[in-house]
């Protein structure tokens, strides 16, 4: 004990320096959006590296389940491919797809993120959409050379353009931060015919997700007081607490479309 105290006294300057320097780093990281971004990019890289090893074991134990899921997905993709061949003229934008595995997933917070095992080396860039076989998962936020951080749909900052499959009425889909299996669809006009059990799909108004990706079904709805809009609770098809293989989709024309839209906003 005496030696410990002696050591502390001997190295007190180094200690004081380290503590205060960490504090200044903390202040710096909080100060501007730029510093926050870089900080969270670093932590994405570090965290991913640590979690890769632990998730490797999980993969091995889940192999049987994953195989089943993969075959389900293959089936679904094959069906979609066949449908696509029939209605090829509808799909005007050539979306590209990349397969990835989820390394870390959070769903307990109000602002959730996931980390996936592909990054810039695989062509992943921020603002690409992420989907699973059953529905949408999120949007890519930061990338490092080998990993990417994805803003989950269970994040109160994310809004997705969605519509009712039957009537094509658009609304914006958000998470309320409460139930990880439920999203809220706002801004659907009350003229829309709606029933419990109707399917909700992506609207395709943004350049992130193509139109027609399934999201969930209408669980219940009510009219917002004093407005002409519905408030709809959507039960998600994809269980966000159990994600395995996901797909990152890219719209190659995104930058071009966005720059055009920015031009008209100015």
């Amino acid at each position, binding site marked *: 004990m005496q030696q410990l105290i002696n050591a502390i006294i001997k190295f007190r*300057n180094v200690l004081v*320096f380290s503590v205060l320097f960490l*504090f*200044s*780093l903390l*202040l710096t990281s909080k100060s501007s959006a730029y510093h926050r971004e870089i900080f969270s990019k670093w932590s994405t890289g570090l965290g991913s590296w640590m979690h890769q090893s632990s998730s490797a074991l999980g993969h091995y134990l889940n192999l049987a389940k994953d195989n089943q899921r993969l075959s389900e997905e293959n089936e679904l993709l094959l069906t979609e491919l066949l449908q696509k061949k029939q209605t090829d003229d509808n799909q005007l934008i050539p979306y590209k797809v990349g397969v990835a595995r989820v390394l870390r997933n959070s769903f307990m917070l109000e602002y959730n993120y996931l980390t996936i095992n592909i990054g810039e080396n695989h062509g992943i860039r921020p603002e690409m959409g992420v989907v699973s076989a059953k529905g949408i998962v999120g949007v890519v936020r930061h990338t490092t050379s080998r990993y990417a951080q994805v803003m989950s749909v269970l994040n109160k900052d994310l809004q997705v353009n969605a519509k009712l499959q039957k009537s094509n009425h658009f609304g914006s889909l958000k998470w309320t931060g409460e139930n990880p299996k439920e999203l809220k669809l706002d801004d659907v006009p009350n003229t829309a015919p709606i029933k419990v059990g109707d399917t909700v799909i992506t609207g395709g108004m943004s350049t992130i997700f193509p139109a027609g990706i399934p999201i969930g079904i209408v669980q219940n709805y009510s009219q917002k007081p004093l407005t002409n809009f519905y408030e709809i609770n959507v039960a998600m098809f994809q269980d966000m607490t159990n994600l395995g293989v996901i797909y990152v989709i890219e719209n190659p024309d995104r930058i071009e479309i966005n720059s055009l839209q920015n031009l008209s906003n100015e």
Partner: protein
Amino acid sequence: MFALFAGLVLAQSLLFDRLLIAQQYVPYISLLFIVLYPTDLRQTMFLVVAFLYGLSIDLLSVSGGIHAGACLSAAFLRPVVLRSVFGISSDYSAVKFSKIPLVQWFIYCLLVVMTHHLVLFGLSDFSMNRWVWVLQQTILNGLLTAVVISVFMFLFVSKK
């Protein structure tokens, strides 16, 4: 000492931060405080004071904690600089800044300023991508600051 503290903080953030030379170089006159802080006082106390000093510049110029980190680092490495420039004897006795030759004084200033600037620009860039810029800023700004501080010293302190 307190007057120097307050005066330099205000002078730096109100006057010298706006004094851009060749569009991008700023003399960090505030470093006079770190340079002139008495050498015979406790080093631990110096670290805390330097941190608070940097922090108050940060508060006035809304820059997070980069000045605090930089001043702290400069203060932390100052004993090493003192020892290498003035010799081992400075460990136990006060260095009388008003009596040292200008060349020695300039080298001492330059080393302290370089430490400060390297941390300052490193923190403000916060990534390794622009290390050339960091080095360039450190060296050019450092030279400028060291010259300005030496001139101040020559004009005011050494006359006493």
